[in-house]
C-alpha cells in the first residue's frame, strides 16, 4: 500500500498537483532528507463584497496548511523569491482582521505550541501574489544556510528562552500599573464630578460611593432579597391545618412512593438486562 502511494508521490510533481478550486498547491518539506511533502494551499486574499478585512486587497496571499515547524521568518524567506515580502502573520484559524499590532506581553501570554496554521503574507507589490501562485516547489523550510531548529535543539533553546528576566518583568508590571492607576484615578475624578449633578434630562446618577450608598446591582444581592421575602411568607403559612391540606400531604407522600417505586423498577430492569443478579 505504502509502496504504491510512494510511486504516485514520485510521479506527482510532473503532473499537476490536485488542488481545490481557486487554490494553488505548493509542496513543502522540512529539508532535503524528507521524501513526502505537505502541500501549502495558497490563493490571493479576497473577500466578498460588503465584508471588511484589514488585509490589503490584491497584495495579500492567503496560505493554508502551514506545517508546525514553519515559522514566520522561514515562510517570509521561502516566498521572498516571488517579490519583496512586507509582513507574514501566522494564525490558528482564518481571520479576516489583522491581529492587534502592539505585541502582547511575553510574560503574561506565553506563545502557544504551534500546530498546523494559516498564514497571511502581504507582499509589497501585487505581482508577488501572482508569482507565488505559480510557484512549483518543493519549498524547503530548513536548508544548510538557514537551518530551522527542531527536536532537542528547539526544546533546549525554548527552555533557555523561558528562563525569565525579573528586571524586564518588573519594568513591564510597573508601567502597566502606572497606566492603570492613572486610568482609575481619572475615572474616579470623573465620577466625583458627576455625582449629584443631574444630566440633561434631569436624572441624577446614584453610585455606591456617595454619602448614602445603595445596594450593589448584582444578581447575588437580588437573590438574597427574594430569599428573605420567601422566608417571611413561609413563616406565616399554616401547615396541615385544614383537612384538605392533610389529605393533600398524604397524597403527596403516596406520589413520592410511587415515583420511587417506578425509579426502582427501572433500575432493576437495567440490572436484570446486564445480568447483574447472578451471584456467580
Amino acid at each position, binding site marked *: 500500500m*505504502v509502496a504504491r*502511494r*510512494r510511486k504516485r*508521490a514520485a510521479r506527482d510533481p510532473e503532473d499537476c498537483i*490536485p488542488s*481545490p*478550486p481557486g487554490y494553488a498547491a505548493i509542496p513543502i518539506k*522540512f*529539508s532535503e532528507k*524528507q521524501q*513526502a*511533502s*505537505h*502541500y501549502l*494551499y495558497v490563493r490571493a486574499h479576497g473577500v466578498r463584497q460588503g465584508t471588511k478585512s484589514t488585509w490589503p486587497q490584491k497584495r495579500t496571499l492567503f496560505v493554508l*496548511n502551514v506545517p508546525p*515547524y514553519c515559522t514566520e521568518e522561514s515562510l517570509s524567506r521561502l516566498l521572498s523569491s516571488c517579490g519583496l515580502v512586507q509582513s507574514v502573520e501566522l494564525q490558528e484559524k*482564518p481571520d479576516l482582521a489583522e491581529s492587534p499590532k502592539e505585541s502582547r506581553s511575553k*510574560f*503574561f501570554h506565553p506563545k502557544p*505550541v*504551534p500546530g*498546523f496554521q494559516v498564514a497571511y503574507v502581504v507582499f509589497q507589490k501585487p505581482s508577488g501574489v501572482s508569482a507565488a501562485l505559480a510557484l512549483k516547489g518543493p519549498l524547503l523550510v530548513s536548508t544548510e544556510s538557514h537551518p530551522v531548529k*527542531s*527536536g532537542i*535543539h528547539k*526544546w*533546549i533553546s525554548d*527552555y*533557555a528562552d523561558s*528562563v*525569565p*528576566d*525579573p528586571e524586564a*518583568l*518588573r519594568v513591564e*508590571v510597573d508601567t*502597566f*500599573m502606572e497606566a*492603570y492607576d492613572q486610568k482609575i484615578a481619572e475615572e474616579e475624578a470623573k465620577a466625583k464630578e458627576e455625582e449629584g449633578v443631574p444630566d440633561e434630562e434631569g436624572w441624577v446618577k446614584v453610585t455606591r460611593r456617595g454619602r448614602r450608598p445603595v445596594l*450593589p*446591582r*448584582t*444578581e447575588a444581592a437580588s437573590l438574597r432579597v427574594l430569599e428573605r421575602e420567601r422566608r417571611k411568607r413561609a413563616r406565616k403559612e399554616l401547615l396541615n391545618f385544614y383537612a384538605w391540606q392533610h389529605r393533600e400531604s398524604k397524597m403527596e407522600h*403516596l406520589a413520592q*412512593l*410511587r*415515583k*420511587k*417505586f417506578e425509579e*426502582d*423498577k*427501572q*433500575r*432493576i430492569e*437495567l440490572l436484570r*438486562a*446486564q445480568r447483574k*443478579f447472578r451471584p*456467580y
Partner: protein
Amino acid sequence: MGPAPTGEQLCGAIGEPEVMEPALEGTGKEGKKASSRKRTLAEPPAKGLLQPVKLSRAELYKEPTNEELNHLRETEILFHSSLLRLQVEELLKEVRLSEKKKDRIDAFLREVNQRVVRVPSVPETELTDQAWLPAGVRVPLHQVPYAVKGCFRFLPPAQVTVVGSYLLGTCIRPDINVDVALTMPREILQDKDGLNQRYFRKRALYLAHLAHHLAQDPLFGSVCFSYTNGCHLKPSLLLRPRGKDERLVTVRLHPCPPPDFFRPCRLLPTKNNVRSAWYRGQSPAGDGSPEPPTPHYNTWVLQDTALESHLQLLSTMLGSAQGLKDGVALLKVWLRQRELDKGQGGFTGFLVSMLVVFLVSTHKIHTTMSGYQVLRSVLQFLATTDLTVNGISLCLSSDPSLPALADFHQAFSVVFLDSSGRLNLCADVTASTYHQVQYEARLSMTLLDSRADDGFQLLLMTPKPMIRAFDHVLHLHPLSRLQAACHRLKLWPELQDNGGDYVSAALGPLTTLLEQGLGTRLKLLAHSRPPVPEWGISQDPPKHKDSGSLTLGLLLRPEGLTSVLELGPEADQPEAAKFRQFWGFRSELRRFQDGAIREAVVWEAASMSQKRLIPHQVVTHLLALHTDIPETCVHYVGGPLDALIQGLKQTSSTGEEALAVAVCCYDDLSRLLWGLEGLPLTVSAVQGAHPVLRYTEVFPPTPVRPASSFYEPLQERSSLLPRLDKPCPAYVEPMTVVCHLEGSGQWPQDAEAVQRVRAAFQLRLAELLTQQHGLQCRATATHTDVLKDGFVFRIRVAYQREPQILKEVQSPEGMISLRDTPASLHLERDTRQLPLLTSALHGLQQQHPAFSGVARLAKRWVRAQLLGEDFTDESLDLVAAALFLHPEPFTPPSSPQVGFLRFLYLVSTFDWKNNPLIVNLNNELTVEEQVEIRSGFLAARTQLPVMVIVTPQDRKHSVWTQDGPSAQILQQLVVLAAEALPMLEKQLMDPRGPGDIRTVFRPPLDIYDVLIRLSPRHIPRHRQAVDSPAASFCRGLLSQPGPSSLMPVLGYDPPQLYLMQLREAFGDLALFFYDQHGGEVIGVLWKPTSFQPQPFKASSTKGRMVMSRGGELVMVPNVEAILEDFAVLGEGLVQTVEARSERWTV
C-alpha cells in the same frame, strides 16, 4: 473505509454504544462483528442508561387500590426499601430452580432409584479380602492400617431416600446437588462395626460395588467419587446425567446404617472408637491410661444415622414458610460470596438452615418474616453469639443421660447440637472459620445499618475471594510438611481421631500459634478450607498432600504495624519463661528507658514497607521454631508489588519516608512564608497543591544536587540550562504551593490588573526569600520557584476574589451576575479545590498508612498502560481514596497489594454510566445529601463527564474528570483492568510463588497503528520504567551536595514536550499514548473518523492533502508526510517510527 479494526480490545471499546458521545463512526465491519456478541450480553435493550422517571400527574395522584396500599405497607414493614425488595426478588428468581428443571431432575432421580435397587448382590467375604471387586474400580478410602476384622457382602439398599435441601426447595444454583441416602440392609453390618473404621470400610466397599455397576449404565454421563463434606473417611458417589443435562444436577449417594443400629451412648464425644492398639499397632503406654476420645470419628458415624431426622426437622420447620426458605437461600448466597461454605469444615448451607430452625424454635424468627428479615436476624445472631464459647443446642429434652454442653466444648471448637443432643453439627468447623463467619456477619450488620450504600449489591452480589479480602496471604506449599508438624506438635490422638488426615489435625493448633504470635498486628486470621476432590472410580483416592496447598489470610491492624517490638514480661516474672519458650532464640533481655528489664523480641524493619512485612518474619520464625516447617515451604505473599513503587536502587523502602521528607521541607517553607517580613500584604494561608504533598506521587522527589559540569550555567539569572552534547538532565518537577494573600481594598478590581499585581508579589516574594533566608529563587509572572534543601517548590500567589472577578458579567441592564467561564473555573480549581483536596488526602494518609502505596500503585498501573495522560492525577487519587472511605463489603486495606487488587476490581466493575462515584472525604456528606446527589446525577447525566467523581467540595461538576477520559479511553481502561485482575490474582494465589509480577504492568502494544520509539538518552526518567533498564545515562546529579547553588533545570522532559507538539499538530487525526515513567515508546492510534475523505474546507486542511477520487476532489490525511513529521518534530529524541501500515487504508 477507514482504519481496520484496531486490535480486539480497542475495537470492542469503540464498537460499544457509549453514553456520552456517539460512538466513533466508521469502525470496520470486523470490529462490529467482534463486539456484537458482547453487546448482546452486556447491553440492555434500552440503551443501558437510566432515564429520569416521568409519570403523568394523573398516574401519580390517582386513588390507590387496596392492593397497592398493602404492597406498600408490606414493603415498609418487611423490607428496607422497595428497591431492596425488588432486588431480593430478582436474586431469588435467578438462583432458584425452575419448575421445568425440577421435573427433569425428578425424572432422573426416579431412574437412579430404579437402577440402584437392581444392583446384584455378592456373597459374603472377609473385609480384608477384596479380590471380588472387579478390576475397573478402586476402593474410595485409604485403608490404613489395612488389617481389620469383619465380613462384607453387598445387598441392594433397604431404602432409598432423598434428603437435604432439594426437597426443601432451598437448594440454589449454580451447583445443584441432590443428596440421596441409601440405607444399607441390616445383614451387611455386624455388632461392633462402629469400632476401628469397620463401618467406614464397609460403606466404602458398598459404594465401590455400586459404582462399578452404575458406571456401565448409559444413563450417566459421569460416575465418580468424592468426599462427603471433605471428610475422607466418608466417600460418596456422584452421578451426573448424560447429555445436555450433565451440568444440571449432581446426585450424591450416601450409604447410611439402618435406623437404631448404633447405640448412641457409644458415640458420645468422650468415647473412644478407634483403638490405639489397632491404629498405631501398640497400646498407649501400656499402663492402663485411658484411650484418647475420638470425637470427630464418632460424629461422622452419628451424622450418617441422623440424615433422615434432620430432614424431617427441617421440613416441619421450614416447609410451609416461604419467607424462611427465601432467607435460607439468601444466606447461602451470602456464604458463597465469602467462600465460607466450600471445602472441608466449611460453614455449609445445611448449617445455616439448622441455624434458622434454631432461631425459629427460640422465637427469634417468626414464620411470617420475609427473606430479608431472616437474613438480618441470622446475621445479627451470628454477629453477637460466639459459638466457640457458648454453644447452642436444638435439643429440648432434659434427659440426664445426655452429655453436657461443656463436654462438647472440650472436644470441639464450635458447638451447635442437633435435636438429639448428641451430635455436634459444627464438629468440623474450626474456630478460625467460625470467627471469620462472625466477623463477616458483624461487617454485614454495620453495612445494613448504615443505610447509605446499596447494601444488597455489596452484601450479596460482591464476591470476596481470599486474595482480595485479606491484606496478606501465605501459602504452605508442600502439604506433606504438615505431617512432620503434627509429630512435632505431638498431635497423635488427633491423627488417630481424624483417621490420619494431618491437614485437619494440624490446622487448629497452627492457627492458634500464629494468632498468638501476631497478637496486636492481627485483626483476623483465616485459612482456606481444603477443597473437596473428585476422582474417577478407577483411581485411588487422592492423598492428603494432593489437596493443593493451605492458604492463610491475614487481616492486619494498621495501628499494630508500626511497632517493631514485641514486649514481654519483666525478666523475674514467672511468665518470662513462657515468653522465652514461645519466641525461642529471638527473645532477648532488654533494658528500657523506664528502667524495666524485660523480655522482648525486636524485628528488623527500617521503613514502612518493611514494617508492613514484619508478620512475614513472625510467621516464618514461629513455624520454623514450633512446627519444623522451614522457610522454603512458607510462601508469603505480602509485598511482591512493592517493587513497582520502589525508587531507584532503594529496595528497602516504598517511598513513604522520602515523601515524608519532602512534606517536612514544605512545612519549613510554609513557616518561612508565614514569617516573611516586608510583604505589603500578609500571607493568609499556605496550601500544598501537588501530589507529593498528599503522598500520591508515584516516585517521590529526591533532593537535587546538580553537577555543574553537566549543565550550561546562565550566571546572570543564576540558572542551569541543559546542554546539547550531554544526555538529558534529571527531571525535576517543582512542587506547587498556593500562597493566599489577605484581602484588601487595595487590590484592583480588573482581571488584567490583578494579574500584574500578582506578578509584582511573585517578584517581591523571590526578593524577600533570597534576602531573609538566602534561598535561591526565580520569579515569573505566575509563580516563584524556590530551591530549598534540594527540593524545588513553585509558589503561586493567589487572590481569593480573582475567580469572582473573572466570572463577573454585566448584563445590558447593568445587573452584574456571576457566570462560570473557562478561565474562572480553571483558576478556582487550581487555587481553591486542589489545595482542599490535597489537604484532605494528606489527612487520609495519616489515618490509613497504606493509602499512599495503593494510590501510587494504581496510578503507576494506569500510566504503565499508556493511559496516564487521559486521567488526571486527582481523579485517580480519588478513586484510590474511595477504596479507603467506602471499603464495603471489605475493610480499609492495610497493604498496597490488596488495595491495588480492589482498585482493579472497582475499575472493572463500576457502572460509570449510571452512578457517580461518591468519595465522602472527611465524612462531610450526610446520607440525605448522598441520595440527593444521586438523583441530581440522573437528571443531569448527559451534561456530566463520562466518569463522575463527587466529593463534598465538588458536588455537581466533577472537576477532575471534566477534560477526560473519553468514553472510549475509559472503556479501554475497564477492559484492561478486567483482564489484569484475574491474571494478577492467579499469580498471587499460586503456591509456588507469583512469578513475574510485572506482567500486568506491561502494556499491549499490538493495538497501535504507529509506534514511535524514543532514544533513552533523552528520556530523563528512563530508570523508572516498569522493566528497569540495566544501564542508563548519567543525569548530572551528585551524591553529595555540590558547590553549585544555581537553580536546576526544571520540568524539562523532552518526551512530554514532544507529545505536546504532536497533540497540537495532529490531535485531530490521531491519539497519542505514552508512559511518562520512562516509557520508550509512544503509541499512535489514528482516529477512524479523520480517515474518511472529506470535501475541501478551508478550516480543516490541517495535515491533509487534496486528492481526486472518482472525479471528485476530496481531502485525506497526508499520512506519509505526517509520519516523516513525527521524526522531524522529535529530532534527536525519536529513534524510529514504526508504521504498521497493514492496519489502515487511506
